[in-house]
């Protein structure tokens, strides 16, 4: 599929999203859809670093929350509009991404993962003690009536469709460019890649920054979605687990994997929340994870590829 084809598909998906927003379907679709699409963005963004470059980021909540709290800060300080929030949320998280990029100079493998986890704890403590954005008490956002759309549900849903499409298209473009090949080379063997003249540091910095950017973007509209943000839910461990699990289930080597994983696991979780109201929800995540990594180690895309080859 050529890039133009992908663009056409992307525009078509956005069109479909807008159409769905225009149709008077049940408003619950928008809320559930928002969450699933948010995970598409998160999983795809995580995968740019985790899947393509092989650096496992445990600090997803830090980036997500940074996006959300950048929004809160800008709303509180300047009453900034939503598009500004998204760009700024992404940029601030991208800066943090650049920071962890330099960590990769010294830290590989699990060490890197643990450092990102530690980063998340430190950042959470900072936010807890920063009263301006609500601190430990949390921040309540009073939403004005939704501009241009008939409700916030539709607006946020449409926005997330656009963000998800953009993120996926960017990830796909990277995957197919020399950058993607370079990242794959350093994932397989960093020293060898370095020797072959792959600019590993620059590539890694690029990957961490871009991944951070989109994770921040995913978090930026969050205050408008929940209207109440407090540190322990913004830094929820679930984001770290889902960011890791969704690409693993879908397959980490292609852009399609995280999308499939996020849609499947995200939808399953949404359905489970409103059908089986108990611990079973978490249990499903656990069992699905274990079953998948044991039985379909390449994820769904890998499984399909293997079946087709037969």
């Amino acid at each position, binding site marked *: 599929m050529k890039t133009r084809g992908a663009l056409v598909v992307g525009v078509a998906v956005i069109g479909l999203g807008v159409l769905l927003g225009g149709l008077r379907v049940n408003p619950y679709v928008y809320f559930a859809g928002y969450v699933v699409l948010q995970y598409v963005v998160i999983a795809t963004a995580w995968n740019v670093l985790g899947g393509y470059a092989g650096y496992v980021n445990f600090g997803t909540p830090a980036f997500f929350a940074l996006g959300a709290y950048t929004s809160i800060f800008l709303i509180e300080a300047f009453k900034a509009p939503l598009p500004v929030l998204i760009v700024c949320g992404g940029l601030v998280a991208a800066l943090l991404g650049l920071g962890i990029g330099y960590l990769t100079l010294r830290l590989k493998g699990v060490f890197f993962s643990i450092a990102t986890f530690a980063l998340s704890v430190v950042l959470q*403590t900072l936010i807890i003690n920063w009263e301006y954005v609500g601190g430990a008490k949390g921040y309540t956002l009073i939403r004005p009536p939704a501009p241009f759309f008939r409700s916030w549900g539709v607006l946020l849903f449409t926005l997330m469709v656009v963000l998800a499409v953009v993120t996926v298209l960017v990830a796909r473009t990277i995957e197919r460019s020399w950058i993607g090949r370079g990242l794959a080379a350093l994932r397989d063997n960093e020293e060898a890649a370095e020797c072959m003249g792959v600019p590993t540091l620059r590539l890694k910095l690029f990957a961490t920054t871009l991944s951070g950017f989109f994770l921040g973007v995913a978090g930026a509209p969050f205050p408008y979605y929940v209207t109440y943000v407090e540190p322990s839910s913004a830094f929820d461990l679930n984001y770290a687990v889902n960011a*890791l699990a969704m690409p693993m289930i879908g397959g980490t080597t292609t852009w399609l994997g995280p999308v499939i994983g996020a849609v499947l696991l995200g939808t399953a979780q949404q359905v489970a929340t409103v059908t089986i109201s108990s611990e079973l929800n978490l249990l499903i995540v656990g069992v699905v994870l274990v079953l*998948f990594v044991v039985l379909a180690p390449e994820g769904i895309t890998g499984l399909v590829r293997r079946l087709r080859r037969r």
Partner: protein
Amino acid sequence: MFTWDLLANAVVAGILLGGFYAAVSLGVSLTFGLLDVVNIAHPAFVILGAYAAYVMNSSFGLDPILTGVLFTPLFYALGAGVYRIYYSSFERRGEESLRGLVFFFGLLFIIEVALSLKYGVDYRLVEAAYIGKSIDLGGVGIAFRLLVPCVVGLLMTLALSLFLSRTFYGRAVMGVSQDQVALRLMGANPVRIKTIAFGIGIAAASLSGALLITISPVVPSTDRDYIGRVFAITVLGGLGSVGGTLVASIILGVAESLMATLFGPSWSLAVSFGILLLALAVRPAGLFGR
């Protein structure tokens, strides 16, 4: 407000806490440090051990730490079983790192949910004669609730380092992490050695769970508070160094305690992780890394 008395007390409290942290981290030091198995579900096994202690304590009035010791064989077997699954699903195929991680994440959730389905989500505590009592040594108060776990933690550290340095299997475990081929030539089966080591790691987790519930109340999701701490300690101490793990535990314990006593506890956790980040940036192999 600062007094020398306060400082002495803070340091002692930190050391006591460090001894307990060492107990919780030892298993990870073994499985992650020496076997390269990223068992992120380790804290979940700790909580499982804590619930074992709770159940025996509330139904039979058994001492939590005695329960912890009595249950070690069972957890050893559990650990060995988990490793077998892990080995046949990941290690043998050579795809352990990332997928293994997800596997253990899944395991963590399963244990958490299983516990809350069986025992509910109330805070669980144990009763023992020494809880709530303390002694005073020259102005330094020592709570038995923290002293006992610390002593047990130190004993566990000692036992593990003796095992690793003095016994055949222990040396074989050290060998596994360094040179598997040489180990095979010696006639030892690496998989078997690793199974033993992993079993010991989980047994240590269960015993430290008994210590945990002696110190503070436990719910099934308490494990999440320990994921960061445990791996921070192991990395800070230097992978696979049992002594290093103890030192790192005490550093973290004392740092937390000093912060809490002298500057206000609000930042104590961030300081611990700040130390870790700094240590990683300066010396990625940890304090006593191999």
